[in-house]
């Protein structure tokens, strides 16, 4: 056991920095600074993905044969850190983090050959059609039905909370293909084109006044059977595999570390009634230290999981743990953000958060994003399997309760 950084990794950091310096355009950087969600502004983030793809860096975590980079765990961590430090907008995860790995695991050769390059290049934007009004935590109770009709399925029903459905041209979704038996056993995983007739997309406005999620309605929507991933009625296996990626595939610690550093810079600019800066205030410093030490712990928990993964082990329920820890720390950091700014955080200018918009921030730009980030971060303990559900998984799968 040691923590030595291989020489090659140090060079790698410089290489990444140099690339980011020369490729991130002012428009992309503005979008990065104004991103207050997991989901970045579409136009700019897709432009960024195209630049990364041209360099071959759009999907470092994919196997090399499908367009991955073949980097070590350490290199991937360095890359993730440098992306956050440079304030690049985070790539939209539905294609690269969810659908892609799923197709690599379960897709036919034809599906892989068709879809994977389009995911990498950003030609396709994907959304995830799992949840329904009646099926959230209890996903297996989903009702959207796909009737078999010759070479097609005919879909009727509705999906809700579908992030970016209004921007996506593709959806991967779970549908019911059998009415009897165990609920999990009658589910099928499909891929569809959002331009197919019969699909209606209604955006839903969130707490932060941004329409990020949608409700999607299906009225006799035809999907060819060759767009099925895995066997009919065996979609649950595919879905579960994907959920593990959604929860554990992501590293929270690098971004949290950078956000805490930024918060310290902001606190250094706030003058207290005692004449010092808020950064030197013992109560404030204590709270930040509590967060920072948790982030340090999390960074090592994440590294342990990554190295288990690269050694071919299944992190299993550990991905539930990083999901809980990462999202709750994320929420705490955004709380600290609004606490640090006090009343300045209350100033509400959603228009000033639109990249390229013409509304200027009333206060310093760093104050603009704090509240929207706080509001949006409330969602991360709800989506991807709520933190209550994750705790249940740990209790059952790890502790054997």
């Amino acid at each position, binding site marked *: 056991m040691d923590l030595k950084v291989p020489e090659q990794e140090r060079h790698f950091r410089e290489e990444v920095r140099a690339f980011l310096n020369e490729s991130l355009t002012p428009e992309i950087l503005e979008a990065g600074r104004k991103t207050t969600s997991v989901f970045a502004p579409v136009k700019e983030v897709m432009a960024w993905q195209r630049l990364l793809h041209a360099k071959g860096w759009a999907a470092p975590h994919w196997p090399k044969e499908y367009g991955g980079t073949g980097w070590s765990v350490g290199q991937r961590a360095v890359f993730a850190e440098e992306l956050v430090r440079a304030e690049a907008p985070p790539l939209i995860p539905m294609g690269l983090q969810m659908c892609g790995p799923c197709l690599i695991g379960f897709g036919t050769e034809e599906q892989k050959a068709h879809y994977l390059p389009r995911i990498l290049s950003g030609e396709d934007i994907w959304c995830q059609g799992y*949840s329904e009004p*009646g099926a*959230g*935590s*209890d996903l297996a*109770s989903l009702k959207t039905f796909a009737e078999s009709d010759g070479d097609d399925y005919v879909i009727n029903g509705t999906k*809700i*909370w579908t992030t970016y459905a209004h921007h996506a041209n593709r959806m991967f979704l779970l549908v019911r293909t059998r009415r009897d038996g165990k609920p999990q056993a009658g589910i099928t995983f499909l891929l569809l084109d959002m331009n197919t007739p019969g699909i209606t997309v209604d955006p*839903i*406005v*969130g*707490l932060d*006044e941004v329409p990020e*999620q949608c409700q999607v309605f299906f009225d006799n929507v035809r999907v060819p059977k060759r767009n099925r991933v895995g066997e009919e009625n065996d979609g649950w296996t595919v879905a579960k595999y994907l959920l593990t990626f959604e929860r554990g595939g992501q590293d929270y610690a690098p971004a949290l570390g950078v956000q805490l550093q930024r918060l310290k810079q902001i606190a250094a*600019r*706030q*003058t*207290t*009634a*005692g*004449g010092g800066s*808020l950064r030197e205030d013992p*109560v*404030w410093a204590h*709270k930040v230290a509590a967060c920072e030490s948790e982030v340090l712990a999390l960074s090592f928990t994440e590294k342990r999981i990554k190295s288990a993964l690269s050694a071919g082990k299944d992190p299993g329920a550990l991905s539930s743990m990083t999901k809980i820890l990462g999202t709750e720390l994320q*929420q705490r950091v955004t*709380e600290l953000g*609004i*606490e640090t*700014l*006090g*009343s*300045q*955080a*209350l*100033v*509400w*200018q959603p228009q000033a958060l639109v990249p390229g918009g013409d509304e200027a921030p*009333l*206060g*310093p730009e760093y104050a603009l994003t704090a*509240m929207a980030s*706080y*509001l949006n971060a*409330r*969602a991360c*303990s*709800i*989506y991807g399997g*709520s*933190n*209550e559900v994750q*705790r249940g998984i740990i209790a059952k799968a790890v502790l054997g309760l």
Partner: protein
Amino acid sequence: MNFSLSDEQQMLADSARRFVQGGYQPEALWRQFAELGWLALPFDEDDGGLGAGLVETMVLLEELGRGGVTTPYLATVVLGGGILRRADAACRARYLPDLMAGDLQLALAVDEQERVFAPENTALQACEEGGGFVLNGRKTVVLNGDQADRILVLARTGGEPGDQRGLSLFLLDPGSPGVTLTPHRLVDGHRAARLQLDGVRLSADALIFEKDAAFEPVRQVLDEAILALGAEAVGALSVLLDDTVEYSKTRKQFGVPIGSFQVLQHRMADMFMALEQTRSLLLAATLKTLEGHDDARQAVHALKARIGGAGRHIAQEAVQLHGGMGMTDELAVGRYFKRITAMDGLFGGADQHLAAFARG
């Protein structure tokens, strides 16, 4: 000791609840407040007011909080009116009748950019010149600042930021030369403005209290504002709890209401206790302040810290237990969540008030 409302206080509570539930018209709201006598509530009978005390304000604001009503009551009546109530007879006679009739909107400007909220942290300068004053500087997040007919501006006439002495309060006509107001929204839907003062000339009679001696009255008014906020918070938090409990009884997952899961039951039990503790501190702080107890200010600090802490706890749990629905702008939960969040950001946050509590 007696924690029950008098008949009059109960009538006020009932009429406020009826008003809030009765589908009022936002445009006509202020006029109706005047007709109901609510704008005259805290002012002395000698000044034409109703001579009611802090308990009445508490009763009214709890109902407004429950109804989620967005009003300039805090800015105009509690903050602005609180200041004028303490001003000299001439000033009271000149402004209070209009305020009580609903014809005068006010704002109190204390906050400054990149300065942690505290009246003594004021840096904005007022220099004496030719028998009057010249003001230069910027105030931020002036509640109701965009609608106010008069803005009360806290400025430094002596000492350094951090000193309680050397603070003076000026009554400003926002139409005066050198005043730039930039209106904006707050996250909870309230209105505010940034106030820029460039060489604004005021005559000596714009001074509300003695020169250099505004700190104590401003602090008293801010204490009253925290009490009002606490009452509104209790009203809003009780809705967040009630809505969550109700939702958990009707929302089904895994074939059962989510309220049947023990983890969620415990979480809602905690929300309930947090609300009751907030209500207790509201009563403690209100009654101690009303009766002038030595430790009244301690209780006010404790209350403000609790609005932040318990407010956040209850509001976050309400959103979490609503799942995806809680993240939308469609349910009341979202609106109340944002109002509670904003409350911690006003008049100093929880940590600051706990630190003040610790100092005693």
